[in-house]
């Protein structure tokens, strides 16, 4: 390792430096100059600084989009795909930051927006490494930022409680992941994923290998909220401030899916076993297939019974984690990333609408959306696009996300061994239509309640929501536009 390596490292990490610099700039500006301003002014200011900084980082990413690098034993691995995923993460963070201008949940907006940027930095590191140590450190940076963001609404007792539950489950997940990592390291003598891949196949039937796989998958199962590790999700979604919930549902999901897919396909390709019909053999494919099955069934059934909009979104997120796991099983990175990114864009959009509506009406139930068509046409249309995309109605992005994910799983193996999983996923999607349409029924059919005026967000949030809805439409109508960047 020479000094040249480190210089190279500094240059390649320019976007990450910019993001970290943005964190400091936001904190400095908020603490030094804006103490006497109103909270609304400060949140708009912090979001503006974040947008400028992240736009600069995005510029650097686009400028160096063709880069490929593998430095310091897999600690920093860059490819065009990872650059595009980082771009998506930056975009999601910008939207999340602007959501802070909807609703005044804390006086410390500068710190909150800085935490969004810090979590983004963690996610960017997470998607650009093939080293177990770096995966762990980046994952913890993301998680710790998100725990604190969840607890930020000091006025609501639910916020602290949600954060505590999120923290306890997340801490357990981290311990599981680490224990699994220690076994992977013990079996192969390396923390570098390709080296692990080369050596782990010698231990294919070893019980220790299986324990390691189960522990690692369980740890990441918590992050992506797959059943049976989903318990934190409904509480965190319900109790957290809207921007925090939006970021948990979007950015954190994209990064976690990316790294889980990479871990399994790059690090453990030789010990997949099989989850095919009547040909079950132990390995991560079997474990992931079980998680996917449980998530799709439980997530969709539990969502049917919800009256709170945020809990409905949480259970729908659990079901969607199940669908996305099909893309991981299929081993198709483009399918997984297309799914994760379009899903994240959709959820951040829905949480945007939720934030605006809750802020104006104070009602968190699905019934609170009653008659939204008369109260805000823009929000109604945007919400319908997002919800229909989640339901998987063509030609929206959600349809093609599911199509690619299911097709990847169906194509795996020689004789359609995973047909049972795909059939289950299709059935589960049909069930999910019911609760998604319930939401739309409130918006378009239910009578307008007495004495409820117009609902309107700030102009920046309105523009961003319209752009997100447009993005869902366009990437759905022409999926090639997005997917060619992810190959």
């Amino acid at each position, binding site marked *: 390792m020479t000094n040249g390596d480190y210089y190279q490292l500094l240059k390649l990490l320019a976007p990450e430096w910019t993001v970290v610099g943005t964190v400091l700039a936001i904190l400095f500006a908020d603490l030094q100059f804006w103490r006497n301003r109103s909270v609304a002014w400060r949140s708009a200011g912090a979001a503006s600084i974040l947008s400028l900084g992240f736009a600069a980082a995005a510029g650097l990413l686009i400028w160096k989009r063709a880069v490929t690098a593998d430095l310091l034993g897999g600690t920093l691995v860059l490819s065009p795909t990872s650059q595009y995923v980082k771009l998506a993460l930056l975009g999601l963070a910008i939207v999340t930051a602007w959501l802070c201008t909807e609703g005044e949940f804390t006086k410390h907006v500068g710190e909150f927006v800085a935490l969004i940027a810090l979590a983004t930095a963690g996610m960017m590191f997470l998607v650009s490494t093939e080293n177990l140590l770096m995966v*762990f450190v980046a994952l913890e940076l993301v998680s*710790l930022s998100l725990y604190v963001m969840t607890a930020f609404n*000091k006025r609501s007792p*639910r916020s602290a409680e949600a954060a505590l539950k999120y923290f306890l489950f997340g801490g*357990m997940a*981290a*311990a599981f992941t680490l224990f699994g990592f220690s*076994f992977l*390291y013990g079996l192969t003598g390396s923390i570098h994923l390709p080296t692990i891949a080369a050596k782990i196949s010698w231990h294919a039937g070893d019980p220790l290998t299986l324990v390691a796989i189960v522990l690692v998958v369980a740890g990441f199962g918590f992050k992506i909220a797959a059943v049976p590790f989903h318990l934190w999700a409904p509480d965190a979604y319900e*109790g957290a401030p809207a921007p925090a919930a939006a970021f948990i549902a979007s950015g954190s999901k994209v990064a976690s899916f990316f790294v889980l897919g990479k871990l399994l396909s790059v690090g453990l390709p030789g010990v997949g076993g099989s989850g095919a019909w009547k040909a079950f053999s132990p390995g991560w494919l079997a474990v992931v297939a079980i998680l996917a099955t449980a998530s799709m069934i439980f997530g969709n059934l539990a969502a049917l019974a919800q009256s709170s909009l945020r809990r409905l979104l949480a259970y729908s997120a659990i079901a969607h984690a199940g669908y996305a796991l099909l893309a991981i099983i299929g081993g198709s990175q483009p399918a997984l990333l297309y799914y994760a990114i379009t899903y994240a864009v959709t959820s951040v959009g829905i949480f945007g609408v939720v934030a605006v509506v809750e802020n104006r009406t104070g009602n968190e139930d699905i019934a609170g959306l009653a008659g939204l068509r008369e109260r805000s046409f823009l929000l109604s249309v945007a919400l319908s696009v997002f919800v229909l995309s989640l339901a998987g109605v063509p030609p929206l992005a959600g349809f093609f996300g599911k199509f690619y994910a299911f097709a990847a799983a169906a194509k795996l193996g020689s004789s359609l061994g995973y047909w049972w999983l795909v059939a289950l996923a299709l059935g589960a999607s049909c069930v999910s239509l019911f609760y998604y349409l319930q939401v739309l029924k409130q918006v378009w059919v239910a009578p307008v309640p007495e004495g409820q005026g117009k609902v309107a967000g700030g102009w920046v949030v309105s523009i961003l929501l319209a752009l997100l809805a447009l993005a869902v439409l366009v990437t759905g109508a022409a999926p090639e536009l997005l997917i060619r960047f992810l190959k």
Partner: protein
Amino acid sequence: MSLTPGLHHFLVVSALLFSLGLLGVLARRNLLVIYMGLELMLNAANLALVAFSRFNANLNGQVMVFFIITVAAAEVAVGLALIVALYRKRQSAHVEDLTSLKL
């Protein structure tokens, strides 16, 4: 019979520590004791890493342990802050009182 402990001794101890920690997290009712369980789980992973590092004859595992200790400290800071925030609202640090969100 040799009295030097081998790799499997360390692994058994580490698995025991991990199980004890998990039991503490799942069965105890006081939040602070639950935290101690979490720490025990992390330290079980540390012990396994150090043992593997010794027997694999490379230092990757030990380096990882240093990072884990540091991150665990940060995690405790956040966790204790969360307990304090909750205590101010509820005057309690027991999991039975975390009921405003249905599980």
